[in-house]
């Protein structure tokens, strides 16, 4: 490595040039810079602590600029030096800001006025990246080069290229001699009166041959613009797969199998899910197309989707998605999951509860529904999963897809002791609404859990499952209903109204308008429910019954009557 000495810091104190302002101002600015770097590592840009650190750093530059338009810092292993004076000393390399610059070869930094306005955050981002970088990743010089700072200049020694060549000495002048030019030309002219190679032709002098016209310029501009839209990962995948197919050499194919395995991981970690889907889809077709495929290679290619479908691997992917800043497009996710193997649905369903990001949950719900629709057998199997959250999500998918075939596994779930499962089963059956589902729901009316019963009776009512009328009637007209809460009561009465129709008016009218043997009316809740049921029946007789009660004084009953009549009129 070349010398890193920069003249001023070797001078004695009294020989140093007078600084344009107090070195303490520069020291303070560097302190604030170091703080800002730390906060940049710890906090997001919208965090108040981060924002305060940036403001402080911004403010630290302000008192310097009236005295000098730029700050030139020379850099040693442990120091930033300004005009020969140390303005930051950090001997601990793991903490040292000067060392971050020094180790990658930067020996001088010049900050110009205005750096704090636009470029400081870019610098902080670069420093953070460099501090966390693995040895094979880009170093500070490359990152600074790519950034193209305009307010930050730097000088560096290129540690990487120091040992590389130079033209050691200028070439020795050629020996003095005379070239036989004239003789050659004469000889050529005599030998070949016609044109000889190299003789200039007039048409060659037409410089317009080389001018680009507007159309050509537009063409090139279009090509350059199109270049920026190329899907690079997919393009390279197509190349790799083409090579695999065209080259039958086993070693080449072996190498490509390895490339595909690691490339797939790379694509996953970079969030290129569409490309992974492309890879898996193309691989599947390739396996079917290439006749000369060695069994070992076939196995490795087949393993690509299988390995990704492994619950542990897939969970990693989903976790990465949950932690990433943005969620990929739905189409990309759909395409990826379309390529995965059976068993994936369970993992996805399990993740629906775990996902922290609502947008990921939404996306995964769509994925899950899509997968369930193409793999109902798997979905029905998962309804019986021992993982409660998976079973519940499977039942939700069955409900969403109204999968009649799911009734059998749902029947088993209704026998389960876990209430959440039975509730989900009842809701699923209600959504499915097939005759089989409704028959099952009849049995659910006897469930111990109120929610299960409510789901069941509501579905029965909405679907008009008249076979359940005797059971519903028994509840409505019996005593058990009195013990139920208002929601359940209302569900039963609504179902009763829907199932019994006009036949239900006399008992409902009795409950709404009449007194019992002891001259008492039914409770306001029961009467309100009866009014609601009459409203659902909605016939002239039902309305008449409601009208008779319009002078009701109890607010709950009056409100129910009014609502029922309003809805019918």
């Amino acid at each position, binding site marked *: 490595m*070349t010398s890193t000495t*920069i003249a001023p810091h070797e001078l004695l104190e009294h020989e140093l040039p007078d600084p344009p302002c107090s070195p303490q101002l520069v020291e303070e600015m560097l302190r604030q810079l170091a703080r800002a770097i730390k906060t940049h590592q710890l906090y997001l840009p919208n965090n108040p602590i981060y924002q305060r650190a940036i403001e402080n750093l911004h403010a630290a530059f302000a008192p310097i600029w009236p005295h000098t338009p730029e700050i030139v810092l020379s850099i040693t292993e442990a120091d930033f030096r300004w005009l020969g004076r140390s303005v930051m000393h950090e001997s601990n390399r793991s903490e040292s800001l000067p060392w971050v610059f020094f180790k990658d070869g930067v020996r001088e930094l*010049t900050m*110009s006025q*205005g750096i704090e306005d636009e470029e400081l955050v870019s610098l902080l981002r670069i420093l953070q990246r460099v501090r966390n970088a*693995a040895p*094979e*990743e*880009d170093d500070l*010089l*490359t990152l600074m*080069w*790519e950034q*193209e*700072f*305009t307010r930050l*200049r*730097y*000088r560096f*020694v*290129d540690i990487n*290229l*120091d040992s*590389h*060549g130079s*033209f050691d000495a*200028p*070439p020795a*002048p*050629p*020996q*003095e001699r*005379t*070239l*036989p*030019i004239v003789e*050659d030309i004469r000889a050529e002219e005599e030998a070949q009166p016609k044109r000889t190679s*190299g*003789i*200039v032709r007039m048409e*060659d002098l037409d*410089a317009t*041959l*080389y001018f*680009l016209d507007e159309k050509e310029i537009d063409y*090139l*501009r279009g090509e*350059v613009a*199109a270049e920026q839209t190329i899907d690079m990962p997919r*393009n*390279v995948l197509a*190349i*790799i*797969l*083409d*090579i695999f197919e*065209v*080259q039958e050499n086993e070693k080449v194919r072996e*190498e490509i199998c390895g490339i595909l395995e690691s*490339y797939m991981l790379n694509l996953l970690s970079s969030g290129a899910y569409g490309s992974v889907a492309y890879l898996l889809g193309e691989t599947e077709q390739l396996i079917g197309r290439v006749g000369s495929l060695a069994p070992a290679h076939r196995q490795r290619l087949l393993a690509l989707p299988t390995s990704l479908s492994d619950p542990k691997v897939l969970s990693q992917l989903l976790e990465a998605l949950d932690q990433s800043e943005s969620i990929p497009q739905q189409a990309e996710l759909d395409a990826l999951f379309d390529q995965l193997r059976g068993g994936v649905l369970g993992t996805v369903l399990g993740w629906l509860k775990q996902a922290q990001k609502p947008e990921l949950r939404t996306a995964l719900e769509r994925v899950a529904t899509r997968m369930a629709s193409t793999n109902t057998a798997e979905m029905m199997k998962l309804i019986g999963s021992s993982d409660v959250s998976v079973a519940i999500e499977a039942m939700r998918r069955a409900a969403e897809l109204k999968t009649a075939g799911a009734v059998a596994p749902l029947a088993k779930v209704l026998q389960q002791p876990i209430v959440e499962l039975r509730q989900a089963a009842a809701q699923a059956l209600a959504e499915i609404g097939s005759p089989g589902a409704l028959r099952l729901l009849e049995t659910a009316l006897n469930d111990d859990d109120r929610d299960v019963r409510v789901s069941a009776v509501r579905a029965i009512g909405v679907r008009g499952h008249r076979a359940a009328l005797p059971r519903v009637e028994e509840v409505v007209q019996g005593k058990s209903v009195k013990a139920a809460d208002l929601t359940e009561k209302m569900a039963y009465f609504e179902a009763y109204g829907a199932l019994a129709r006009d036949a239900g008016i006399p008992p409902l009218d009795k409950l709404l308008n009449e007194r019992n043997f002891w001259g008492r009316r039914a409770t306001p809740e029961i009467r309100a429910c009866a009014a609601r049921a009459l409203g659902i029946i909605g016939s002239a007789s039902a309305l008449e019954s409601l009208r008779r009660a319009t002078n009701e004084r109890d607010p709950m009953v009056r409100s129910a009557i009014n609502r029922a009549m309003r809805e019918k009129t």
Partner: protein
Amino acid sequence: MSTTSAVSTSAANLTPPSVAERGSDGLVRKMGREFLLAIYGALRTVKMYPPDNPVVQKTMQEVVRLSNELLRAEREVELRVSGEFIFINATRLRLDLENYASFNRIISAFKDAGVGLCRMRDASSERDWVVFLTLLQNAAVGEPDARLYALGEKLAAAKVTTFELGPSTNLDEEMRQKAKEAAKRTYAQSVSVTKEVINSVRMGRSPNIKKIKRVVQGIVDQVLNEETSLIGLTTLRDYDEYTFTHSVNVCIFSVALGRKLGLTRLQLYDLGVAALMHDIGKARVPLTVLNKPSGLSEDEWRTICGHPWMGVLQLFAMRGQNDIPYRAMIVAFEHHKKTDLSGYPKHLRPRTMSIYSKVVAVADAFDAATSRRAYQTTPLSPADVLQEMRINPHRGMDQVLVKAFMSLVGHYPVGTLVVLDTFEMAIVNAVNAVPEALSRPIVRLISDEQGNLLFPGTIVDLNQMNDSGGYVRTIIKVADPERYAIRVSDYFV
């Protein structure tokens, strides 16, 4: 006032900046470009219409507006022409597809009038510009100093005192020397790193990706700042080092062509990495096959033709953990394909050829055909190669890119040995900045009229005219350096 330029030096010691000068000059760059485009428009209108024509008036108003705005921001405006570049104060304005024709026209007008710089310290008027631009396009004949003097006299007679004119300064020569030194360092490092990379791959070791990136950064900086010196060094076609110098040359030509296409700095970087690595697959071809002078068996030929796809596999093998050099892979795969996607290697899935691959294909074909290597002991002359690339569609190159490449390297590319009508011999040193003078490059005279060899020789502009309005020198023939035992690269190092 312009702030100081940014400096990125790749110097091995802390000598003054030698590679790149980049600075906080965005404003000057933007306004400068607009200013030059306005001057270009004004140059055209004063040539076509009388001064009181509304079109002329309008264009002059725009020139005055922009020059005054620049003056307000910078206190003084110095427009300097150096080689093929235009500087506004310390800022070099970049060429791109949008402006290169107009920039060249201005450079040409300045050079014709012997003007190296034009400085303004005070606000100008529309009349000042009409007079100046009219006179600029009606330059006297003779030596540059005489033309400049004549223009100054005419301006004074017309009572136009806003413009301080000056000739090309020694500063240009100093800058050229510095740029040349930087170019030499960049070139040597690039060849050395390429050699290390390819040899590492051959030995099954993992090459240092950072070094590759660094040399390409150096090449991009060099091309953006002063490409002539670097392009001159592509004549260093060392037979023994062909594989390495070829990769570096292709990188230089590609980046220079990319710059002409208006690619951004980072895009040039991507293109440069891809170009430098385009033949990396050859590291997998046995040297016995690669260096076989003739009589390749079918298998051996197939092996050589496999280097594009081998390159893709190699790039996968040598990448770091995070970076996948996608463009380099695509270019490695496609650089021997024709624009209709025939050629080799075979592909199965539908694809569209990348413009980067097309650029590298042109640069690759040019450098390969003009180089001496195992199976081509007599290289073709650059002029013949260009001619072939232009007229032979079976080469399968993008014809628009070939045209752009020709306008980059001129009809007589840098390094071409030529015989002049004075019977002097010369080596092409740089393409002429005057667009109409692509066949009249800047050359270095390496022998006098009697054929006496000169070293290092003097630089002359073949577009230069004598007092009677004829050209002082004209190329009559392209010559073979081997015939005269001349090592062209000696004149560039």
